[in-house]
C-alpha cells in the first residue's frame, strides 16, 4: 500500500505547473520492462451477481506477463518534468465497462485531458475513483445504468486513481495514473515503451506497477537521439 502511494509525492509535487513549448532538438526514449521470476497465480473470483453478463468467474489481471517475462500494464514516466512538448488536450482516454471488467486495466492521462467512460453491459455499473493518499473523497463516481451510455469526464486531479465498481461487482478494479506532463506511457503485452519529444537533459525514469510499486532509473537524453534504456527488471518482493 505504502509502496504504491510513494510515487504520488513525485506526481503531485512540482512547484511550477507544466509549461508546454515547442521542443527543439528533442530526443526519444525506448525500452522494455520485464518481471523477474514467475508471476503469482491469478486470483479467481466467483461471481454471484449478473452472472449472465459477467460470467461465473473472473480472473484478476494484476500480472499480465508475456514472452521472456515481458510485463504489461506498467506505467513508465519521467519524474517532475517542468517544460516539454505541449499537452494534447484533444486526446481522450477510453474506459469501457465490458463483461463486468474495466477495459483497459491500466492507463495514464494528463491533467486537462478527458476520459470517456462507457458501459457496454446491460446492467448497472458505476465508476468510482479515489486518489491514493489523496484524502477520503471520490474524484469520480458516475453511474451508467443503460447499455451504451458514455460519459466524458475531464481529468483534473493528478495522482494514482484507483477505480472500482460498487454495483455488486467487487472484483472490478483498474488504475488511472494522471500526470501534469505528457511524458508517460503504459507498457503493452510485449513490455515495451517509448517516450518521444523529450527535451535534452537528465531525467529520472520511473516505473509504476500496481503490486510492485515504483522503480527509478537515471537517464540522459541527448539532442536528436533515441536512447535505448537498459532493460528494466522488476523484482517481486517476498
Amino acid at each position: 500500500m505504502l509502496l504504491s502511494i510513494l510515487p504520488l509525492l513525485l506526481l503531485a509535487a512540482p512547484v511550477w505547473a507544466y509549461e508546454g513549448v515547442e521542443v527543439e532538438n528533442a530526443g526519444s526514449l525506448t525500452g522494455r520492462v520485464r518481471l523477474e521470476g514467475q508471476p503469482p497465480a491469478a486470483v479467481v473470483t466467483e461471481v454471484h451477481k449478473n452472472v449472465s453478463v459477467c460470467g461465473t468467474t473472473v480472473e484478476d489481471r494484476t500480472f499480465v506477463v508475456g514472452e521472456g517475462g515481458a510485463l504489461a500494464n506498467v506505467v513508465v514516466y519521467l519524474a517532475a518534468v517542468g517544460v516539454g512538448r505541449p499537452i494534447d488536450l484533444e486526446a481522450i482516454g477510453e474506459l469501457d465497462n465490458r463483461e463486468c471488467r474495466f477495459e483497459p486495466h491500466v492507463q495514464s492521462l494528463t491533467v486537462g485531458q478527458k476520459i470517456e467512460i462507457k458501459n457496454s453491459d446491460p446492467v448497472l455499473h458505476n465508476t468510482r475513483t479515489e486518489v491514493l493518499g489523496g484524502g477520503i473523497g471520490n474524484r469520480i463516481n458516475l453511474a451508467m445504468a443503460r447499455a451504451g451510455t458514455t460519459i466524458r469526464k475531464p481529468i483534473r486531479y493528478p495522482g494514482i486513481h484507483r477505480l472500482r465498481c460498487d454495483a455488486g461487482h467487487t472484483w472490478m478494479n483498474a488504475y488511472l495514473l494522471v500526470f501534469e506532463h505528457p511524458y508517460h506511457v503504459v507498457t503493452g503485452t510485449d513490455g515495451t515503451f517509448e517516450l518521444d519529444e523529450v527535451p535534452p537533459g537528465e531525467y529520472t525514469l520511473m516505473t509504476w506497477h500496481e503490486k510492485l510499486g515504483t522503480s527509478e532509473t537515471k537517464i540522459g537524453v541527448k539532442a536528436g537521439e533515441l536512447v535505448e534504456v537498459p532493460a528494466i527488471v522488476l523484482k517481486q518482493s517476498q
Partner: protein
Amino acid sequence: MKPKKAQPDHAYNIPRLNKIFFWSSLAALLSIVWWVVDVDYDKPWKRYQREFRSLSMEKVRAQLEREQNRLARGRRKQQLEELHAQLTTAQDGLRQRRIEQEEARARFGDAEKRYYVADQANRFARAVYDAYRYEFETLREHVEEGHGDHAQLEQAEERLHELDLERQETLVEFQEATAERDAVQAELAALTAAVDEVESGIATLEAEKTRLEGQLESLEGGVVTTVRNSPMLDFISPNIKIQQVVVEDLRFDVNFQTIPRVDRCHTCHQGIDKEGWEEAEQPFRSHPNLDLFLTSRSPHPIEDFGCSVCHSGWDRSVDFKYAAHYPRNAEQREEWEQKYEWETIHKWDHPMLPVQYAQASCYKCHKDEVYLAGAPTLNMGRETFERVGCWGCHKVEGKIGPKVGPSLRVLASKSDRDWVRRWVEDPWSFRPTTAMPRFFNLSNTSDERSLARNDVEVAAITEYLFARSERRSVQRMPHGLRGDALNGEQLVNAVGCKGCHLVGTPEGGLDSITTRQRFGPNLIGLSEKTTSDWVYSWIRNPKHWNPDTRMPNLRLSAQEAADITTYLMGLAPAEGFGSEALPDLNPQLRDEVTLEYLQNSMSRRVAEETIATMSNYDKMLFLGEKLIGRYGCYACHDIPGFETAEPIGVELTTEGSKIITRFDFGLIHDVPHTRWDWIETKLHDPRIWDRGKVKDPQEKLRMPEFNLSDEQITAVTTFVLSLVKDEIPATKRKMYDAHEQARNEGMRLVSNNNCMGCHQLMDFGGDFAQYVEDPSKAPPLITPTGAKVQPEWLIEFLHAPTTIRPWLEVRMPSFHFEREQITTLVSMFQGISRVDERYPFLDRASITPASLRRGRALFGQKGTSNYATSLKCNSCHPSGNVLPESPPTQWGPDLNMARERLRPEWVPDWLRNPQAIQPGTRMPNFFYDEDTPLVENPEQDLIDLRNFLWSLGDSGQVSSRR
C-alpha cells in the same frame, strides 16, 4: 613693543570667550544634528519600512519582468503584434483624413469656447436670480406685515421676472452650446474610433504590466519622497511613518482603568496583512492565516480587531524589546538576546503570548464553540483537559459531566487486590497510555522515607476501596460458548472499538493518534486486571456495571462478545508489570501515619488513646479514607463515601488572568516567570515547586503527574491560558444565533460521548477512517444529518439505532441517551444544517399518477419491459420486497425507509451530487456530473423518483405490479 591694549570695560578676555562660545555652540549644533539624524531619525522601525519598500520593489520588478516575458511569448505576443499592425493601419487611415480631422479639431476648439462662455453665463444668471429671489422674498414678507411700500414690491417683482427670463435664455444657449460641442466631439471620436479601439485592446492586454509599472513608480518615489522623509522635515508629511489601529472597544486593563488598544505592530510587520510574503523573513512575513485574520475578507479585519487582543504585548510600542515580544523557546530567547538585546519588560503585565499559545485568545470571544475551526491546539488542549479529568479537581465554570474514570463501586467484582495495589502505585507500568495519573514516587516523594510511606498509603487506599466496593455476581459466559481470538481481533478492528480505544501501541506511535482515539483505556493486559467473565459481561452491557459509563453498547451477540473477550484476554500488559513482589506492610509506619492523620482532628493525647482502640484493619480503612480525600481520587472515580466531597484543586476559571506574582515558583530560579512557563513546568513535574523546601508529608504538593506528550502539555497550557476574565463587548464578541446556539449545546454532548472518534462532523474528527481501506467503509460524515433526516426518525434512531448501511462493518452503538440529550442532538443537527422547517412533510395527495409512473419506470424493476432503460436502483437498494442479487454487505440503504427517514427536499439534493455531500460515498451520480446534466430532464426525473420513493412502504407497492 606695543603696550597691551587695555580692556577697561571687561573683567574677562573677550576673544577667549568668543572662542569658547564658538566651540560650544558648534558642539551644541553638532549634538543637535546628531540627535536629529541619528537618535531621532534613525529608528529601527524606519529601517524596516525602508527595507520592506526595497523588498517590495524587488518583488514588483520581478513580477513586471515575468509579465513582460509573458507578453513577449506565445499567444500574447502574437496578439500584441497583430494589434500593433492594426494600429499602424488605423493610424495610416487617420492620416489620410488629416485635413478633415484638423478642421474638426478647429471646430471643436470653437465649440468648446462657446460652451465655456455659455456655461459661465448660465451660472452667473442663475446666481444673480437666486440672490435677487431672496431679496424679493424678504421684501414681500416685510410688505405683507404692513411695513413697506407696495410700489416697491411691484417693481421688484418685475425685476425678478426679468432676471428669470435672462436665466432661461442663458440656459437655452448653454444647452445648444453643449449639444454642438458633443456633436463635434462625436465627429472627432468617429474619426479616431478605429485607432482608439485598437489602443484599448492593447491597454487591456497590457493592463497588468501598466498596473505593475504604476506600482513600481509609486514605490520608487523620487526626489519629493526623499525630501518628505528627510530629517527635520519628516514631521510634515512623511510616507515612512508609524502605522496604527485604534480599537476603541477592545481595551487594556491597566489597573483601575482601561484604555483603548492602539496597535502599532504593522509599523514593522509590514507584510502581515498582505499576501505574497509567506516566505519572507520576519518582521515582514504574512500572517499564516489570512483567510481568518487581518484581511478585509476575513472575519477579523485588522481595522476592527488589531493585533494585541489575540497576541497581547505592549500595543503602543514600536521597539522590539518594549513591544514585549516573548520568545517561543530557549533557543529563540538566546537569538533575540544577541540580536535585539532582548529582555523581559517588567513594567508591562501583558507580554506577548509565545506563538504556540496564541490560540488561547480565541476563547475570549468563542468560548461556547466546543470545537473551534482554526484552533487545533486549543481544541486538543480542551479535549485533553476534559479527557484526563483536570476539571475533576480544578473547578472550571461550565465544565460538568460524568466522572472520567470508572466507578469503583464494583471494584471488588472486577479486579484483585494485588493488581489494584500495583496499579494505584504505578499505573503507567501497566498501560503506558492510560489517562490515570501517577500519585506516588514523584519528585517530592522519592526519598527513602517517602517511598516506604507510599507503600503504606497505596495499601491503605486499596484496602478502603475493596472494603467499600460491592462484590456483584458476574454474568458468566454461557456454558459451551467458545471464543475465537482471530475472529475477536477482526471484530475489535472492525465494529468500532477503535473509535475510542487503542489496542497496544499504534503503528505510527502515540503522536499519530488523536485524543479521541484514546478516549477509552488501551485494551491491553485485561487478563492481569480482571476475569474473562467480567470482560464478557461488561462488553455485553456496560450500563449494568456503571449506569454513568460512557461506554456504549455495541449490541454484540453472545458469540461475538465471547470472541472479543478471548482476543482481549490474550493481550499481555506492558512488559515487566507485576514482576516485582509487593512489599510487606510496615506496621510501625502504618501506625505512625495513622497517628499523624488522627492528630488533624484531635490532640496528640486523644489520638494516641484512639489508635490504641483501633484494629489494624480499622487503621487501614481510616487511613485509606483520609488519603483518598487528600489525593482527591473521587474527582475522577465514583467512590462510596465521597458522594458529596468537594474538589481539592485550585479553581481555574480565570487562571489565564491571574497575575504573575501569585504563581509560586518556590525556590526554582531557572524557570522564566511567566504564566505559561509555570503551567508547562507544573504539568511536566507537578511537584517541582517543593524542590529544596522542608515540608511535612501533608504539606507537600499533591497534584499527580499525567502521562502527556510535550504537544499535549502545550495544548493543555494553551487551554488554561484561555481561561481569562477579559470582558469583550458585544460589538466584538461572536454572537450566536439560535442555530449556532443549538449547535454549540449539542457539540458538548458530542464531545462528551466521543462521537467524533468515529464520525466526521463539520471539519473535525472521523478518526476511525484511518482504519478502513476503502473510504466508503468509514463511518458516515454526519454534518448534513439535520438537512437529511426527519427529526422523528432521528429521535428513534438515536434512541435505538438500526442498520442503515448494510455494507458497513463498523456499527453505530446504542448510547442509551436520555430524552433531553436526544432532543439536544436533534436540535444540534438541525442547527448545523440551519434547517428552518423543523418538521418537513410531503403532501402525497399532490403527487400525480403520471409522476409516479415515470418515477417507477426510472427506478426499474427486473423483468419489466422498460428495465433496460431504467436506472436499475434495485441493483443495490432493497425496496418493496425486492432484494438486490448481491450479498447484503454490498447493498445500499433500504429504500423502504426513505419516506419515514428522509426529508423530502433532501432526496433531489442528494441525487444531484452525492459526492459533494458525502465524500467517498458509493452512491454514484446519475443525473449530473457536477453541473453537467447526464440525462435529458434531470430536475423532473429527480422529483419523479422521489415521489416514487414516497410510495414505497405502502404494502409492497413494487411487487404488487408483478
